[in-house]
């Protein structure tokens, strides 16, 4: 068989689509490596900002010691600085923490963060970092105990607090010989996680049942719960930021971010194993809101015959560009252009609010217009589904040949 024949046999039907999918994956791999090669942050230049009185800084075993010279030329210890890392919303959060010899935090600085800019910006704006200053390294330094989270940026607040606590603990135990409270271990399983599992179960039974009335009402109930709980109550829909975090290998601690694993892992697993999308039509909060608006005006699905396919390619192109940029610049949240946060948490820039207004208006005229032509997650599910079909095709042909 010739080379082109082999390639055609490997690609099977839909050869063009699959060739494009392969090319897209290769570009994303290149973006991933570019981002990986350029993602190292230099801590040293920031040390002065958390030990402002130090004129000399020395690094020993990953901890920085700051000194100043007195008039006689003797070195006086000003304090220590350590780095701690924890998981935020989009990826790791690394914090540099300065501690004086008495064990009091005197400076806090962000070394690295991959959070959504619009949300993370709330932290300095509300003086969140100042909450840590003048506290002892032996304090709990935990959101909900002695630190107040910033509303609208809870996951980022928790990530920062955890990173600060880890840095402070390292300095306290390694340099100051102080006892610090052990890191609390708890599995974050609560109402959102329980609801999510319930929604998966509803979707599973909905896909299995042959009773159309049951299926219809189960789907409506799932959408309503999805909109109320995952949307308006917790603002935890599936976003492109989750996809980019997953691809960037920014996987958070499972015990504190169980929801992330249930949501992202569940969608990928069910789509791969079952070949059915468990999320979009069943409990996507934003889809539910669009569907609710469509019900008000009896708006119908709009698929212009000749335009539908080119428009779908625009949607795929947008999603692809956003993922490639997110991977290359290692900023999962910055390219997640869905207006979910604007609707469910009233957070976002003016462009996102304008987009939200347009989408909500469009939803009165057309059934789920954002899902059909703009949402970046639809092409992601499509790609997983295409990979599954391709794998099945190959297995079937091998069986036929055997």
């Amino acid at each position, binding site marked *: 068989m010739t080379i082109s024949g082999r390639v055609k046999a490997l690609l099977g039907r839909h050869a063009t689509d699959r060739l494009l999918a392969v090319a897209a994956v290769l570009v994303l791999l290149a973006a991933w490596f570019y981002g990986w090669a350029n993602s190292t942050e230099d801590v040293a230049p920031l040390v002065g900002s958390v030990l402002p009185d130090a004129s*000399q*800084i020395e690094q020993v075993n990953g901890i920085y010691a700051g000194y100043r*010279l007195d008039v006689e*030329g003797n070195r006086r210890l000003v304090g220590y600085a350590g780095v701690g890392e924890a998981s935020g919303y989009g990826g790791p959060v690394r914090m540099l923490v300065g501690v004086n010899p008495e064990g009091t935090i005197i400076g806090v600085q*962000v070394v*690295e963060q991959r959070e959504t800019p619009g949300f993370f910006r709330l932290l300095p704006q509300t003086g969140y970092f100042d909450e840590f200053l003048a506290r002892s390294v032996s304090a709990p330094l935990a959101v909900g105990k002695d630190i107040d989270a910033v509303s609208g940026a809870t996951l980022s607040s928790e990530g920062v607090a955890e990173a600060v606590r880890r840095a402070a603990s390292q300095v306290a135990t390694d340099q100051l010989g102080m006892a610090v409270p052990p890191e609390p271990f708890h599995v974050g399983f609560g109402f959102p996680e329980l609801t999510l599992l319930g929604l998966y179960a509803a979707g599973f039974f909905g896909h299995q049942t042959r009773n159309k009335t049951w299926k219809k009402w189960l789907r409506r109930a799932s959408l309503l719960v999805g909109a109320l709980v995952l949307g308006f109550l917790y603002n935890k829909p599936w976003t492109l930021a989750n996809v980019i975090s997953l691809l960037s290998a920014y996987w958070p601690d499972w015990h504190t971010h169980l929801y992330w694993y249930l949501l992202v892992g569940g969608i990928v697993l069910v789509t791969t194993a079952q070949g059915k999308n468990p999320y979009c039509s069943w409990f996507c909060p934003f889809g539910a809101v669009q569907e609710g608006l469509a019900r008000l005006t009896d708006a119908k699905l709009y698929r212009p015959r000749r335009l539908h396919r080119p*428009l779908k390619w625009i949607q795929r192109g947008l999603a692809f560009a956003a993922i490639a*940029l997110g991977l290359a610049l290692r*900023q999962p949240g910055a390219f997640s252009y869905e207006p979910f946060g604007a609707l469910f948490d009233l957070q976002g*820039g003016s462009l996102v609010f304008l987009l939200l207004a347009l989408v909500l208006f469009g939803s009165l005229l057309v059934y789920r217009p954002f899902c059909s032509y703009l949402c970046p997650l639809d092409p992601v599910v499509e790609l997983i589904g295409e990979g599954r079909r391709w794998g099945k095709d190959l297995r079937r042909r091998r069986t036929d040949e055997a």
Partner: protein
Amino acid sequence: MKRSLFLLWLGLCLVLILAAVGQSVWGITTGQGDGSTQVLGAQINQTPTATTTAIATLSPLGTPGPTFTPVATLSNTYLDQ
């Protein structure tokens, strides 16, 4: 729904999305705008060069004058501030 109205709607949405994404790219790559670097100032996420971060030592009276050490060679040496 009329096709022209739909296309106008879609075009406006695309313009807004592209503007938002462009704003993020510009912000991240230049340290301004709506990118992550705006969050806490331009020093975050930017790797300083040795030439821009060499800082003089404060020397006591009667001792030799200031010296400069590049931060890039900080490991196990003194960072002069």
